[in-house]
């Protein structure tokens, strides 16, 4: 009897799970194997007959001294991911704390969340025009204050940071939401007690808020950093193929262009796999650090 029930439950479980498992087989397991295989070939993406096994040649091309993949493309990728996280995180840390003590918390949160529900195509285009050196909003303000206008997107010294700033701006809302959730978990008594002892806002923040918020903070940091390493839509909308030169080009965008613009599917797949390992190593390293720091739950 017991045995029968057990079997029935197993059968039921797997039949409920079957669409999900089938999906992962087709759109995740097979693709991974496929990607690894293509990365060792020279292939234009058309028929399989024209596929040529070339061993490690694609990887050698990517790591060769002539290649721009490691520098500047991968360097840009890290600057972009790290910069975006830093901007959105620091802003969110301040904003979530402030609005948690203010009236109309929901209203403020909605305002900061607006970019997160807007398509990147809109954000990229609007900022592209706000950055315009001749008649964009930002330079309008800068020049009316008497300064020289800045070539945000045309000067390779500013272009990457300009796009990174937009990415940070976009990310504030989600970070605020998560941090607000963390803040809600901190009992109000702590603050009341601290206030009775005469602690100011800054002191309350460093002594109570920050330590108790640590798990949420780490979670926000890790997920948005990984997200930043993979993202390329904003760069594509604002700087097309990552110009001027390669100064805003990021790894995933280069991979996309290699595959779909130049038809170098082998090289593109090799890039995807290299990027994957980079992200994998970073994730593992972060998990390790978290464990050591006493955050077990992630």
């Amino acid at each position, binding site marked *: 009897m017991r045995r029968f029930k057990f079997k029935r439950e197993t059968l039921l479980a797997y039949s409920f799970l079957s669409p999900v498992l089938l999906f992962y087989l087709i759109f995740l397991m097979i693709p991974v194997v496929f990607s690894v295989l293509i990365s060792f070939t020279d292939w234009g993406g058309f028929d399989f007959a024209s596929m040529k096994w070339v061993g490690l040649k694609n990887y050698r091309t990517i790591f060769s001294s002539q290649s721009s993949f490691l520098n500047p493309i991968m360097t840009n990728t890290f600057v972009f991911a790290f910069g975006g996280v830093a901007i959105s995180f620091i802003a969110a840390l301040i904003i979530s704390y402030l609005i948690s003590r203010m009236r109309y918390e929901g209203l403020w949160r909605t305002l900061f969340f607006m970019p997160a529900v807007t398509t990147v195509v809109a954000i990229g285009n609007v900022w592209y025009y706000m950055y315009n050196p001749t008649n964009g909003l930002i330079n309008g303000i800068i020049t009316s204050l008497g300064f020289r206008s800045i070539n945000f997107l045309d000067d390779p010294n500013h272009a990457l940071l300009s796009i990174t700033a937009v990415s940070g701006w976009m990310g504030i809302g989600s970070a605020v939401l998560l941090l607000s959730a963390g803040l809600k978990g901190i009992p109000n008594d702590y603050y009341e007690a601290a206030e009775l002892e005469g602690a100011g806002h800054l002191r309350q923040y460093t002594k109570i808020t920050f330590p108790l918020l640590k798990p949420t903070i780490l979670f926000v940091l890790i997920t948005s950093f990984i997200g930043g390493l993979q993202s390329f839509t904003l760069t594509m909308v604002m700087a097309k193929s990552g110009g001027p030169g390669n100064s805003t080009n990021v790894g995933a965008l280069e991979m996309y262009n290699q595959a779909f613009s130049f038809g170098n599917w082998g090289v593109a797949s090799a890039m995807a796999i290299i*990027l994957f390992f980079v992200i994998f190593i970073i994730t593992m390293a972060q998990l390790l650090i978290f464990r050591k720091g006493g955050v077990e739950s992630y």
Partner: protein
Amino acid sequence: MKSNRAPWYFYVIIIIGSVMMVFPFLDMIFSSFKSASEYALLKYRLLPEHFIFSNYRMAIEELQLLLLFKNSLIRSVSITLVVLITSSLAGYVLAKLRFPGKQVIFSFILSTMMFPAFLFFIPNYFITVHFPLVGGNDILGQGGEGGLAASMLGLIVPFSVSGFGIFLMRQFMISIEDAYLEAARIDGAKELRIFAQIVVPMTAPALATLAIFEFINSWNEFIWALLMNSVNSNLATLPVGIQMLKSAIDPTLTQPLVMAGLVIATIPILLLFIFLQKYYVRGMMNTGLK
């Protein structure tokens, strides 16, 4: 509870911050009423010289807006519904049933969230267009006119399961008391009925959160839709159609139209979010995860 504890400078900082958030949206709206020659002017002005409404008419004509809107809507609604189904089924199984391999499957699903999407981009494109037995393909995926990409399926199927969705539903369902389910089982109810009549209604708040999340994400998704559009131009969604309107050769002439198109694409989803944000925010906060 939070009375007047916030000093005035809190408000000053937040209001300045909010202006920085809202301003680009205002700029987009006002720009959509400017003329092409006003774009070529050297001086920035927020408000247009004359409000030109014809940008909207032209954008709607040149964009085939109805088609784009229809595609975006069908896509977002379908993905949302399918994800709700797959997530709640899998979430239920992983939360409430005992069976061999459960732990492995759960860890696997968690790990899928760590995989970067672009790793699958190239092979998934290939699988989608050579999917067997759809869009005229034979059993080997050859000979057809684009496989899944021959129809809206190409925009939907590759998004039909969400690791995040499964995780969210499982977390929520774990808190359902086993006693409810046991009682129903003793009454002789079939498992599917228990699922549909007891479990699903109890998880309504989580489903609402997931639905909003999926709807917005699939409405805004760009890269995959762009690729599907190049295979089959009937599949253009709003973001893709608008980006296409922006002419690479002569951007000055098309820019105001692009802005008008963007207003049409973003304002409905913004309003939808503002209207439903209560459900979204509550759900996100309860799971503490995005």
